């Protein structure tokens, strides 16, 4: 019995993923949108196009450690995509995977420095 299970397991190979080393990038494949991520620093805080476009005020320009920073509160985001479309710098992008889970409300708020990597 055990040998049968072992052989069946070996034959089927690895069926689980190696997350988080390998992230399943399913979203671009199906063009499904989730809440945007900030994937590069903003070069012109005077522009504030993103903050003006955001219908739920999820994006604001704040002072962080003595300098301007873009603050994104994904709990307030409705994934309308206006920031992705309108930012001339390309700061915002659609994510490639849905794998964000946080234990506290505060951790859903991120600033540009904290999210220079994807997601």
């Amino acid at each position, binding site marked *: 019995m055990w040998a049968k299970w072992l052989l069946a397991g070996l034959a089927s190979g690895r069926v689980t993923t190696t997350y988080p080393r390998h992230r399943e990038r399913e979203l671009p494949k199906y063009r*499904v*949108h989730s809440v945007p991520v900030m994937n590069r620093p903003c070069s012109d805080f005077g522009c504030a196009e993103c903050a003006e476009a955001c219908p739920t005020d999820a994006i604001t320009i704040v002072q962080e450690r003595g300098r301007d920073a873009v603050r994104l509160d994904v709990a307030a985001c409705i994934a309308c995509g206006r920031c992705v479309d309108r930012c001339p710098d390309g700061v915002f992008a659609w994510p490639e995977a849905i794998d964000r889970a946080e234990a506290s409300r505060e951790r859903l708020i991120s600033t540009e420095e904290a999210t220079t990597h994807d997601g």
Partner: protein
Amino acid sequence: METVDWVAPARLAPTLPWQGWRMDARRDGVEDMVADVAQGLVSGRTELLYYGFAPGDDLDDRADREAAGKRDRGATGDRDAPAERGDGRSRELLAVTCDHSQREVLWRFGRCEAGQSGFPSLAAHFKGVLWTEREMWEKTGCTPVGHPDLRPIMHPEECLPDPVARGAGTFHLPLGPVRADVSESGFFLFDTLGEQIMHMQPQLFYKHRDIESLARGMSPEDALLLAERISGTSTVAHATAFCRAAEQALGCGSSREIEMERVLFGEMERLYNHVHDFSQLASATGMTVAQAQLARAKEELLRLNAQVTGSRYLRGAVALGRSASVDWAAGAARLAAELPAIDRRVRHFLELLQNTPTFVDRLRPTGIVEEEWAKGYGTVGPVARACGLAVDVRSDCLSHLYESTGHACMTAEDAFGDALSRFRVRVREWGVSLDIVTKLLPLLGASSSVDAGSPHAAGRGIGVAESPRGRVGHVLFCDGGKVVSWGIRAASAWNWPVFGLATANGNIQTDFPIIDASFALSYAGLDR
């Protein structure tokens, strides 16, 4: 804000969706207005698109109103009535009716006298607005005089329905508000005698968001985002009806290319909703293979939606005054390539279901809606069409938008008004929707936008669309390019009041999942 006379004819611009229709407005005393509207509705000459208060009455601050409502209920300790708030404001009732034979949409304003704390009830004559007037009463404290069933409706945490049936052997079964699956919150109170359901009262409004008030002062572009989120499974229908109302209010109108895309998105929405309803009915009758296969088809349709528009539920597809940001060369090719295979599989399982006696027997005669009820309550969508009533805005009001594709209103052949008739109406509509999509695909591609209109214009507009559940109506008042007042009438708002009747009469407890699935009601649409 200065007072705007909304009845003035200049406040209404003719737009493409209403091509060939006459739009008129009238202001009367509230008694005359209610009597006239009731007479038109009871005789079947007119159809009610929207009913509520006109702007200018209910524009006090939302927080103040809620605080006042809480104070009133707290002070009196009375769970039956919000206290009268005779605030001396003059109120105006609004009923938007349409007359198909005359091709006329009439905005009826009914002025209440200053200080008058009541108005004659329309629900006393037309049951379709029973719940609407309860809501109006609770929001404003203005009493619909003569309303046959005046009870609070909007605060289930404070007031739930009381059982009706009493006596030896009767049993009261509360169900909800927490439901299985991803169903929204709703409470059902069953009065049963053994297995027999004698009476059933649904209670909604557990997740009332007051979307209409949230939009006040917003630009129509921002309010469109709210419209898309009224009910996730009717995103396109609500967005389309809202855009049509906003384009009329702003005086910008739309173009044939824009409307053609809206028609296509509307049918794509109907396809995935109908196949979901088939799957739910298969689940309710224990047909697990059909349920799984039809659920798979729904998932394929959702992925197809995402591949074409970027959103599984078609959010962002309908835009105000312009075409969708869709690459139609790729999108149309993908739809044309994938839809036939999905269609073949869905039809195969629908055929099998219709030839399975245990499936058909469970649906007939379950959850019957009598034709008289359907007319009396103004039901819409597949629920009305299953009773043989040809109620469909696609053929009633918007037929010229379907000139290039054709559209036939699908009523049930047997018109029994039961779960099987509703199922068969949806089966027929599946074919019609697919046909419209197929014919539209080669016609798409030309991008179009219209002039945004005067940014400071004051105007009103009415927009309608046929959602998978029936007619959706939006009424919008704009001033200075901002939303002043917004009224939403979801399809399910017409069908919910008749649901209790359909569940109670001659059905048993185990019929409920089938009736529930066959009505396919939206909670969020009514709660909004």
